[in-house]
């Protein structure tokens, strides 16, 4: 239970850290528009995957649902970034 609690807290710290990085990066003028946009979207989907793996415990569900979840993360991330880069 303690080990699990520590892991959940570590994930929360990572999620908050990535949010801070995205927020600060979006107000930075140093990056190009497209580089910044793609970076922010990639960070968002990394956070989504962390939530799915550690909070929703996707590794404990049956294979078809796990494949569906991974497919959603990578498929939606890819499609959203591709549409953004049009």
């Amino acid at each position, binding site marked *: 239970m303690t080990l699990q609690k520590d892991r959940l807290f570590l994930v929360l710290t990572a999620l908050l850290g990535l949010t801070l990085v995205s927020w600060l990066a979006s107000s930075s003028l140093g990056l190009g528009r497209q580089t*910044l946009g793609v970076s922010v979207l990639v960070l968002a989907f990394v956070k989504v995957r962390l939530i799915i793996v550690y909070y929703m415990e996707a590794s404990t569900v*049956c294979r078809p649902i796990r494949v569906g979840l991974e497919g*959603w993360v990578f498929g939606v991330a890819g499609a959203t970034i591709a549409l953004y880069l049009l």
Partner: protein
Amino acid sequence: MNAADDNLLEQRSPVEVGVWIFILADMCVFAMYFGVFAWDKHLHPEQFVQGQATLNNGFGALNTIVLLISSYFMASAVHAARAQKIEVYARLIRLTIVCGSAFLVVKTAEYTEKISAGFHIASNEFYRNYFSFTGFHMVHVIVGLSFVTYLLFSIRTSEQVRANASFIEGVGLYWHMVDLLWVVLFSLIYLVP
């Protein structure tokens, strides 16, 4: 994690599988919204640049932090329920409700600010997307919050927790889905230039 914890993890009930299918379907609906937003941004770049400049990133960031913390409380509550630590479970559920309510307060303040400034759903393409997608997400928060509140008032004893283990896990999954959908909406609507 103890043995009972492991056992619960290994034996997902059919109810929970049904919840997973519902969640995946809901996530697919939001995936279409993300696509619509990105496509509309491609078609009306000026409206989106101007619209995004009128948003208050502070509200969006605050709501992201609040929902991420609420997800941590919810995940911890599910683990406490599995371990039959009823008092810890109840305290974490209360904290989840506080965070969910805070999200709604911040969202209401943000909508009020926008409407007071003269922006509404028919203002332009950006605001049509902004109000409809964040509004639909807010409905999900309200539904999730209702379920979490039900947990607090209806499932209080060890016996009730044991008997409703699948329901507690299902509510937890739904709440995490609400969180992850907001993570993408926040980046897409507020941050991506």
